[in-house]
């Protein structure tokens, strides 16, 4: 298991995300959007899922589009409609409502989410920047992100670390993380949950067991604590010891490049 020396930032994220996926689990991956948002919300998660399948979690499966357990050995060459319609999968339930039911019944173990705003307590905003009724920037709405954060056991947030993204308090709570910290999520009526990890381009975060504040876990190779703190609008909790994010192994990099995404469909931006 020799670590790779030559790997891209995205490859590091794929390997880091893959490590959070466990054998036999079901993960939720979104669809759509373009550019960097696509890579964060779709490309890296699918690559991580397939990497997990090929290494430590052969029975890890995903929900994608409305497909349950699509065959990740046969990732379509392009994500236009017909390739989704005809992608071999174990099941495609009768409508999107069935997926929501699986979410509410807590049948998903992990999910991948991205957002233009996330705050100290892991609340996400993909709805509106500024005033909700007359926003500075109207965003995309909610999709099922609210549902993920309400019902999935271990949501994984994938977002680049930027001052305008990591804010003290989101302008609008699309998705409840740990709300106001401590037991406020539970008091609001939600089951235990909330973001499990926040994987960024500079560092990995978790959440403090008691206060539920976002807490730095590891710095990516070559990134300093100062880099990280300067890229955030709030100061995260800092543990006694800050580790380094484990780099991908040579084998992981080989699998990503040669088998999972040889045509760079997933890791595009």
């Amino acid at each position, binding site marked *: 298991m020799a670590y790779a020396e030559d790997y891209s930032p995205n490859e590091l994220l794929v390997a880091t995300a893959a490590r959070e996926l466990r054998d036999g689990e079901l993960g939720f991956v979104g669809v759509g959007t373009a550019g960097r948002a696509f890579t964060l919300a779709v490309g890296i998660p699918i690559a991580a899922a397939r990497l997990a399948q090929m290494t430590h979690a052969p029975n890890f499966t995903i929900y994608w589009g409305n497909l349950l357990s699509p065959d990740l050995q046969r990732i379509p060459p392009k994500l236009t*409609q017909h390739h989704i*319609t005809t992608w071999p999968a174990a099941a495609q339930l009768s409508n999107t409502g069935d997926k929501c039911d699986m979410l509410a019944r807590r049948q998903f173990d992990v999910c991948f989410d991205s957002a233009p705003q996330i705050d100290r307590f892991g609340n996400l905003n993909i709805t509106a920047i500024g005033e909700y009724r007359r926003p500075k920037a109207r965003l*995309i709405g909610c999709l099922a992100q*609210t549902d993920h954060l309400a019902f999935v056991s271990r949501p994984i947030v994938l977002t680049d670390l930027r001052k305008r993204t990591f804010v003290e308090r989101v302008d609008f709570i699309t998705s409840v993380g740990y709300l106001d910290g401590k037991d406020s999520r539970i008091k609001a*009526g939600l089951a235990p949950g909330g973001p499990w990890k926040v994987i960024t381009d500079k560092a990995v975060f978790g959440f403090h067991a008691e206060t539920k504040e976002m807490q730095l876990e590891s710095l990516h190779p070559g990134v300093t604590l100062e880099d990280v703190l300067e890229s955030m609008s709030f100061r995260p909790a800092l543990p006694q010891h800050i580790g380094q994010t484990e780099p991908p192994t040579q084998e992981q990099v080989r699998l990503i490049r040669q088998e999972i995404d040889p045509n760079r469909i997933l890791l595009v931006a």
Partner: protein
Amino acid sequence: MQRKLMQLSDAARLVPSGSCITIGGSIIRRTPVAFVRELIRQGVTDLHVLGFPAGITTDMLAGVGALRRVEAVYEGLFQFGMAHNFRRGVEAGEIEVRDFPETAMIARFRAASQGISFMPTKVLLGTGMAKHNPEQIREITCPFTGEKYHAVQAATSDFTVLHGYVGDEFGNVQWPVQRDSDDIDFIQAKAAQRLIVTVERIVPHAEIARQPTLTYVPHQWVEAIVEVPYGAHPGSCDGYYDEDEEHMQYYQECAKDPARFKEYAATYIYGVTDHWDYLQKAVTVKRLSQLSVR
């Protein structure tokens, strides 16, 4: 069974300005774009749209100033990015929005489809959507467990418009076995007050009756059925044709700038006499053949 077959223009004439209308499909897939272009041509305005994920139809209505309010889980154009016309309208305070996550919006359509006025859900607990919308989201308690829930209001609209695959003259609409089921057309159809369906093709009733389990919209629910081949263009119809990426990119280029979108609408919506004329302007035979997946 009664004959429900109509022309597109007659079906669109059923919908007056100011209506609340549920639009089916998903973003740029199997959504009744031709019907919405016809509505716009007829000057219908001041619409209140309920969608699941809203997409190109909502953005078009926003772009021509015919949209008053939207309730949906998403507004955007999938891999083609943001819904620029819609976004501008909301930021200018001209379009009102009520946001719902998928579980909540489905609960609302399910309530309407089941003839009940509300449905319980936990998905909105603690959210901004609940905080900003006490008219449609109210706290209730489970009488068995004492748990906290929200009641969400049934998603009832004056009209529901869907685009489907094939149907007969009576309004029975069927899906193929190989399809993309990532939408709630069936629930929206069941929830409809007055249902209009456009389909790729009208087929004889005998073909429908051979496989009744494939009928997802039975004739009893339908007020008008209209044959509109390529009725979802420039979006896709799964099993029939893919999204027209070139046209979508051009649409987005125009939508970024109000003046350019005016030109787009002048050419492709107001500047055509009917759907056939639209197709003639918007695609070539070669392009259609490239998009086809049949």
